[in-house]
């Protein structure tokens, strides 16, 4: 019986195990991988995807999906850049960007929760809408950001060592974990995803729960948008394109079930780290980016297979 229990424990924490195995293997293959500079680099690169993945985890937990996050990221980044180019106060810009993320998420949430439309279709539509809006306001060209204050969001370091995006990522994941495990809203999310009808008959407001989930996804995409714009010191019209796939991959590798009702946000960060490390390692090994795309796809497939077989 003991081996069986160990086996089940290992399965539950398999994301962590994979991460450890990965780290050790890569460290052995290429010691450069474990240098502080590189580790910080990986964490930094991962932060954007991790934040998108966090939002996606919440949404997937309710049984839905949000593929518009890449476009929301771009739109909020572009708006921020444009506002700053008109000398709007940086703090105000950040708040406005967050607001836009909230409204965008709310827009998604309204169609999905109140009018019961399919999340895939709704967010597919808003993916286009927000991307188009981004082209419109940027006129199809990048918008530079000169504010050095703003650039600390993506480029600054706390105590000169820890990058700001990493801190943001850790703080938000901690908050997310708390909300999902220690608040009524968190219970509602798992209930709605686990059995929507039962949640409804139990008095949970399914509409409100789903709406809040998409609002959170939008807000997190906005934060990711601010970080990316800050790091690049410019807003790109094509920013975030395809990011939704990596985000979903991170959530799934972390064990979140696409059916809904199952998954832990802390494992999503592990999933994001695995993808980030994979990207980093492949880069260090000079693997062509075409191969990288194939490899990443295979990894995601393997993760989903493992997940399915573990049931």
């Amino acid at each position, binding site marked *: 019986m003991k081996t069986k229990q160990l086996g089940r424990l290992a399965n539950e924490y398999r994301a962590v195990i994979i991460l450890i195995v990965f780290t050790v293997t890569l460290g052995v293959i290429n010691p450069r991988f474990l240098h502080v500079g590189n580790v910080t680099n990986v964490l930094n690169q991962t932060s954007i995807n991790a934040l998108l993945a966090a939002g996606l985890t919440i949404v997937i937990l309710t049984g839905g999906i949000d593929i518009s996050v890449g476009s929301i990221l771009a739109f909020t980044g572009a708006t921020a850049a444009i506002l700053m180019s008109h000398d709007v106060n940086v703090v105000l810009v950040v708040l406005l960007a967050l607001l836009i993320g909230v409204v965008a998420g709310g827009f998604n949430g309204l169609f999905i929760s109140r009018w019961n439309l399919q999340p895939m279709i709704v967010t597919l539509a808003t993916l286009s809408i927000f991307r188009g809006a981004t082209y419109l306001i940027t006129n199809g060209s990048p918008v530079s950001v000169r504010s050095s204050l703003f650039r600390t969001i993506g480029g600054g370091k706390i105590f000169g060592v820890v990058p700001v995006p990493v801190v943001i990522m850790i703080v938000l994941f901690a908050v997310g974990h708390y909300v999902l495990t220690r608040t*009524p809203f968190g219970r509602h999310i*798992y209930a709605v995803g686990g059995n929507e009808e039962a949640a409804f008959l139990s008095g949970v407001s399914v509409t409100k729960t789903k709406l809040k989930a998409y609002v959170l996804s939008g807000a997190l995409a906005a934060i990711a948008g601010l970080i990316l714009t800050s790091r690049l010191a410019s807003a790109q019209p094509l920013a975030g394109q395809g990011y939704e796939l990596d985000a979903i991959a991170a959530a799934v590798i972390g064990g979140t079930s696409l059916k809904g009702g199952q998954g832990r946000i802390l494992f999503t960060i592990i999933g994001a780290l695995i993808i980030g490390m994979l990207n980093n390692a492949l880069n260090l090994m000079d693997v062509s980016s075409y191969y990288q795309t194939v490899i990443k796809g295979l990894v995601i497939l393997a993760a989903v297979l493992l997940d399915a077989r573990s049931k």
Partner: protein
Amino acid sequence: MGEVILEMKGIVKSFPGVLALNGAGLHVRRGEVTALLGENGAGKSTLMKILTGVYKKDSGQILYEGNEVEFSNSRQASEAGIAIIHQELNLIPHLRIYENVFLGRELTKSGGLDIKAMVERTRELLGRINVQLDPTREVKGLSIAMQQMVEIAKALSLNAKVIVMDEPTDTLPEEEVNSLFGIVEELKKQEKGIVYITHRLGEVFRICDRATVLRDGELVAELPVGELDYDGLVRMMVGRQLTEQFPYTESRVDGEVVLRVSHLSNEFVHDVSFDLKRGQVLGISGLAGAGRTELAKTIYGALPVDSGSVEVLGKRVSITSPTAAIRHGIFYVSEDRKGDGLVLSLDVKSNITLSGLRKITRHGSLDLRAENLICTAYKADLQIRTPSLTQLVRNLSGGNQQKIALAKGLMSDPQVLILDEPTRGIDVGAKKEIYTLINALKESGKAILLISSEMPEILGLSDHILVMHEGRVRGQFARGDATQEKIMATIV
């Protein structure tokens, strides 16, 4: 007749943390019906899953037609002639009857489907069980009884020699039960061996030749029905004497009207009115499809109201969602605990607290210690059997799941509890526990609306009975006046 066609001996099967079967078994004879009985959790379902290849046994023997067999999947079992008709029917609604019967084993001729042959064969099979159905019609819209007939035809098309029927009468209205029994007699004449799983002990004496009793995963008895009596059977299943089937307590004289429904109407119910008093059990009887669940869901805000009103404690209320209903002190315990009663993927404590999170929330966050205390109390009070509060609800037996659904309702502090088929699919012992609970709730002043298809249950527990048919209240009976015949007469 009487020759043993299937024998299961000394079957042992364990799952992580639980020994499900420890020396279980049974014999099936040609042309005979063997009842497979036992409380929930006794192992009946596990034993059948091993037989049909869904699970693999740890040890033991299965002898089929004299040979030792082991099926690795359900296809092998059905190809060998062992068919199982599940509680949840496995038909595809938008396909036709013959398409369902031949699903996955379509007859072909020169590369295309031989529809004529399939239709003819289906017609023949249905004829064998005296069922008049057009093989070319869609399954959608067929009554449950008819759907079961199609499943039986399917089993026959597989040349099944052993047919396992899992709770076949559970969702059948009274009059259809007799047709089913007619079919079972037909199958007996055709020398099929039938395993009949049921919780309705009365049926065992009506239709079965032998009874096999499992208890805690072990084979306790295999006896001809002639040598048994009801109490004896119960004792074997439960291991102890069960006195008094339906504990009844007088309703409190304090007759304050807690819930008043007046001329309630919508798509499913028409002009329904009644009063529900504190400390009273109001039974709602009727056939499946009479609109009882719809009435309950309408009162509960899960279905819209077209006209009419609902008053709680004398005040007219507009309940447009279960959230609002709960706020007004009404709670509905669903008839379908797996479907919309519980969240199977969550654990016991999360399910129990789902409608009462308010009670364990301090400053916006959940007090996990309070949650544990409350759930432990409910676990003790309702005698919920679970290894721990963090056990996933899907792993528990039906009776315990039902108690968890009830606990959830109780935690919402309702004044009115609507119980929809609270003992469906539950064993005798757990049923008694739930009846005792219902009485305790009644004594503590709760008002209870009891929807049930089991006549003895309604007659035994209710102070007052409403009879519904096609969305309307057709009759009312006070406790002393009601009998099964009178109720049936109201419907006809």
